[in-house]
């Protein structure tokens, strides 16, 4: 049981680290005046969330492509829902052969 617990804990920590890494990269690339810790993982990226616009979206496409070699296309706009949605999308694509 402890192995399972440790594995789950390890997975959660890795995910948290990846979320923070991506949040930090987005904030730096877009020059946002906000600390990564102030952005929740489920906070909307658009509208009342981080108030990104369509030009920022393309910056995120480039950032994700450079960092994870994952391409976000027009059909994948749900990936921009939040940091969690973005990382879920990346991890799903990374798992594909």
């Amino acid at each position: 049981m402890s192995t399972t617990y440790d594995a789950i804990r390890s997975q959660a920590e890795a995910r948290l680290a990846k979320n923070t890494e991506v949040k930090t990269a987005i904030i730096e690339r877009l020059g946002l005046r906000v600390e990564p810790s102030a952005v929740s993982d489920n906070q909307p990226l658009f509208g009342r969330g981080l108030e990104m616009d369509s030009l920022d979206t393309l910056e995120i496409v480039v950032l994700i492509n450079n960092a994870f070699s994952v391409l976000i296309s027009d059909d994948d706009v749900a990936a921009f829902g939040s940091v969690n949605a973005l990382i879920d999308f990346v991890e799903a694509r990374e798992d594909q052969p």
Partner: protein
Amino acid sequence: MTRPGPAPAAAVPAARTYAYGPDDIARMLPHRPPMLMLDRAFDVVPGVSGHGVKCVTAGDPCLAGHYPGHPIMPGVLLVEAMAQLVAVVYVADAVEGPGPAPDGDPAEGVGYLGSIRDMKFSRLVIPGDRLLLEARLGPRLGTLRQVSVRATVDRETAAAGTLVVTSGRTTTPAPAGRPGGGVL
């Protein structure tokens, strides 16, 4: 006994390239003097990349005031020249591509400049300089596309950076929560 080497890689066919002179460019772009900043284009791979030339002369209208006695091409016009080359690469895709030719004036399909990023100006551009422009289209989303651009004079970089351009004249902002629309 020697082992056979790997089979030679299949030759990748080179993409067809196009060259455009001033008359072609006048048909492809809506710009006109004094805002036409591209004399000719060559090695254009439609929708992918291209090269262009802009010859800077003492008669260029902008140089009369920028600056009197010390004429240098404004950096914003270097960006404009590179953006016009990008427009040619775009229009070439519509005109030369495998699909049906666009209805009406192809120049009407030229979009807008959305952003300028990491643009560095490394050299003054003065009358007599021959600007060699380069553009390579990058990732896209919706109507937006990122483009890497460079302008050189005698192989020396004058300006280089990244642009975001729109395809077509989209003016409607992307609604909240709908990324990838037009320029806001």
